[in-house]
């Protein structure tokens, strides 16, 4: 039996439920928006530990895999007779209990939250990525505007800036129009990086399987190409074997079952690695290239890989 923990408001959770249904793999959907419907016991006694959602019950020893996405998309109503803060605390406590169980389950978990924390710091990841043998761009994290200008000059006036944490930001090219607003960084360090020219390659690893997609776009951040009316094209891509193996190893190094790795290939064939995403939203890549990523994840959850 497979557990899918998430909300159908999230398209990745919806995709995985649909894929498991299509493959006729038994699964229970645990709606993180309705944790009051969940009943479970997990203990060191282990004899009768179970999870039940409405009429569907599974003994935890029979769970082969858990797919989880902890996203917060919906505005929630309060529990009857309770304040917003009380309702929020109850939801946090219930979700934390569930995460505690999922993170320590002996089943295949895609991916354990505790193994995903490295993504909270791009600079932390960069150090690990660099140790794994990948090239990484020159980076400056600072709240000193004067340092930014110096870094800008040292990188031949070609740098980008983005968030250093896992909070999503649009990767933006730093240009003279930003000089005036650079003073704002005094309140918060910003992640500046030399701009690497080349082709974006997104790699999805599922244990030893690798799906790579080359993205052709003039946009600095191809995820937002539409916003800047720039065309974007996705196509399947065959990675050199050593890069493919390095991606698999990097995923293992971070303790992950699957990952979404952001690479850039330069004109002279070098691969730079930027980030390892522990909760990859691969739906767009699957749709645009026809790669069977969700199917592979489903087999992993069934413990058939």
């Amino acid at each position, binding site marked *: 039996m497979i557990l899918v923990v998430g909300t159908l408001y999230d398209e990745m959770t919806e995709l995985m439920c649909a894929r498991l249904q299509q493959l006729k793999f038994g699964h229970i959907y645990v709606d993180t928006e309705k*944790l*009051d419907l*969940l*009943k*479970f*016991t*997990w*203990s*060191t*006694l282990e004899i*009768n530990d179970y999870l039940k959602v409405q009429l569907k019950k599974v003994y935890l020893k029979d769970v082969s895999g858990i797919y989880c996405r902890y996203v917060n998309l919906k505005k929630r109503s309060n*529990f009857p007779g309770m304040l917003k803060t009380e309702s929020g*605390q*109850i939801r*946090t*406590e*219930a*979700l*934390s*209990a*569930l*995460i*505690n*169980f999922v993170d*320590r389950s002996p089943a295949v978990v895609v991916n354990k939250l*505790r*193994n995903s*924390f*490295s993504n*909270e*710091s*791009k*600079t*932390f990841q*960069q*150090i690990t990525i*660099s140790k794994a043998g990948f*090239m*990484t*761009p*020159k*980076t*400056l*994290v*600072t*709240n*000193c505007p004067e*340092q930014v200008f110096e870094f800008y000059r040292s990188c031949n006036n070609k740098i980008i800036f983005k*968030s*250093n*944490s*896992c*909070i999503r930001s649009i990767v933006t090219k730093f240009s003279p129009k930003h000089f005036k607003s650079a003073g704002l960084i005094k*309140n*918060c*360090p*910003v992640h500046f990086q030399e701009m690497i020219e080349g082709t974006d390659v997104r790699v999805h690893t599922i244990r030893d399987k690798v799906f790579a997609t080359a993205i052709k776009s003039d946009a600095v951040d191809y995820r937002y190409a539409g916003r800047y009316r720039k065309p974007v094209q996705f196509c399947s891509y065959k990675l050199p074997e050593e890069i493919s193996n390095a991606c698999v190893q990097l995923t293992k190094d971070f*303790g992950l079952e699957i990952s979404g790795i952001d690479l850039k290939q330069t004109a002279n064939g070098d691969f730079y690695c930027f980030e390892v995403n522990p909760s990859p939203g691969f739906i767009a890549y699957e749709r645009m290239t026809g790669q069977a990523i969700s199917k592979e994840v489903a087999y992993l959850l069934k413990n058939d890989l």
Partner: protein
Amino acid sequence: MQKTILTIANKNDDFCKHLEHAASKKNLRTINLCPEDFFDKIKVEFNISSGGSHFILKSGKKEIGIENVLAVFPRITNFTGDPKLRNSSNHIYTVSEWNSFYKGWLASLSIPVINLISPEYWQKQNLNPIDLNEFSSKLKLHIPAYIISNDSYDLKNFFLRHKKNVRFVSNSHAKVSYKIDTESDFKKLSHLGKYFPITLHQLPKGISYEVFYVGENTYTIDSQGKLSGAVPKKFMNDIFLISRKTGLRFASFEVVASEKKFFLTSVSMYPCFSRCSKSVVTKILNGLFENYLKI
């Protein structure tokens, strides 16, 4: 330039006061950076590339470069934020960016960082039985039993099996925990199971000891704060193993000696000396200096 030990801790951190005192005797300077300093006074320059990294922190007229720092003692897991921004929409973002910088910066340092905790434990201050259970098959020490459940029958069964002596622990707020040792307390608690799963830990009865881990040395402290030999040496390998796996270089382990077994009930990743006598504090700090600063 005088060699420096850098601590990152709240202003009233007792450990830092002891460390400062011991360091001054060895002609070392200590600088403490409070979380508030990061939002107000500190300028950071943190360069990183495939070739290595360097940093400079500037606080007022003070400038701290890596070349003068012997070791860093981070004593906080996460910055909670600039109080001035707490009600602003930028609050979550700035806190997240400062924490992100902090984690990356600590990991980049080539000097001893005590402790450089593995990412899996970034959100924790203490390891409880649920966290410790993953090591249990390799340990000689026993880990207390636990249950997470909203099934009143299973909770009651656990409560009775452990002789009505358990601890309720919140899953989302580590500091919230209550001893549950009466039927009426249990009844009140089990009502909450309507709203969220309840976590209970077995509470072993016995004498409690604190074992400080410093490099290859351990110091066992009894309830009077004095050195003790009550925890047998054969258990110290368990302490080394857990420290290695979690990235701990300095930690304190709570061990309970019950009638027949020794239990490991918790691990503090930010130890303090509240239970220790003065001579024990000196011994442990000297151990830290010898092991990690080679002085």
